[in-house]
């Protein structure tokens, strides 16, 4: 699972009002090279929740993103785009769990695939 996906996912359990961001428990992290596409990154930037991305990438062992929401102008910096790209698309959570921030319910991640299936009483 990429951090791009993590930034979009939220806990869908019945009654939960704020299921975002899911906390990451990382057991195994892998990297996969992806070609950078600055246009995609610029377009995504507006949709992302920045702090959760910084927090998630730190949990995944990558602490090079600026702490505070950067100004749009950083999108012209190659150095920034490289880091942003790496955090968003190249670091994968392979084994571990995503934890609902409100209920603590764990969604296991196995072979890179989060299991978001709800139990009957959570629907």
């Amino acid at each position, binding site marked *: 699972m990429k951090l791009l996906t993590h930034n*979009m*996912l939220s806990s869908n359990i019945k009654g939960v009002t704020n299921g975002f961001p899911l906390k990451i428990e990382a057991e195994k992290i892998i990297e*996969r090279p992806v070609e950078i*596409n600055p246009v995609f990154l610029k377009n995504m930037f507006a*949709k992302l929740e920045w702090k959760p991305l910084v927090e998630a990438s730190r949990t995944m062992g990558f602490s090079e993103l600026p702490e505070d929401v950067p100004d749009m102008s950083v999108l012209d910096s190659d150095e920034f785009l490289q880091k942003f790209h790496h955090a968003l698309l190249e670091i994968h959570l392979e084994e571990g769990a995503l934890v609902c921030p409100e209920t603590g319910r764990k969604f296991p991640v196995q072979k890179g*695939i989060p299991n978001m299936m709800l139990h009957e009483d959570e*629907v």
Partner: protein
Amino acid sequence: MSRPELQAPPEIFYDDTEARKYTSSSRIMEIQAQLSERAIELLALPDDDVPRLLLDIGCGSGLSGETLSEYGHQWIGLDISESMLNIAREREVEGDLILGDMGQGLGLRPGVIDGAISISAVQWLCNADKSSHEPRLRLKAFFGCLYRCLARGARAVLQVYPENIAQRELILSFAMRAGFAGGVVVDYPHSSKSRKEYLVLTCGPPSLSSATPKAKGEDGESCSEDDSSADEENPTVCISDRHRPRKKQKVNKKGKGRNWVLKKKEQMRKKGNVVPPDTKYTARKRKARF
């Protein structure tokens, strides 16, 4: 041919054996790729070469998602069958995979997805596979979440195999109730073999861009039993001709190709990172289209 939907719940029907069989049939691969191409065409994304973040609902072993990758888009795929997702993973699809049940909703933040496709999957929601399943509630949960997670003005194109007209109308009515505008496009309505139905839904109030696009192979006749759909009065919107040279041939954009990926992986390994082993699927050459 009997309908898989009537045989077993999807997560049981698509077991390891069926998932492998499904994904090794060249006939199925070809059909699913064609359906996915048509779905992307009906999505009518802006013609600006910007890769989008798309959703593939009932992504299975990744046949539909691979078409999205060929057009250069990022995608998230959701499926209820672990066996299908395992094959997708084995094939090293570029999209991210989630094990989940669309009938339980989607678990995505509001307004973040640029478009959604679903190929041959949504009709499964019309079955009650468990005592706790109520198809109407599941359709409601699905379309409600789909509507919320899409950006305003974004489209969802769902290719479906409803069992009968009533089932198609049921699916469509829940889409409308969730707030979608749009209707059904029936391609090749007069051919029992090639006939395909697509729900083309736009998020937001009806507008020019939510008018139902024109179907293929209609022979100038209204193609649908239902006159609210594919009405000939509707303007044709952003539908390119099959034979027009395709602009979004991203194949050349993938220019760096396999060697670049293998080299990059080696560099990452040298830095001490965990990088998956190279296989025949790694950055495999995509079939060139046209």
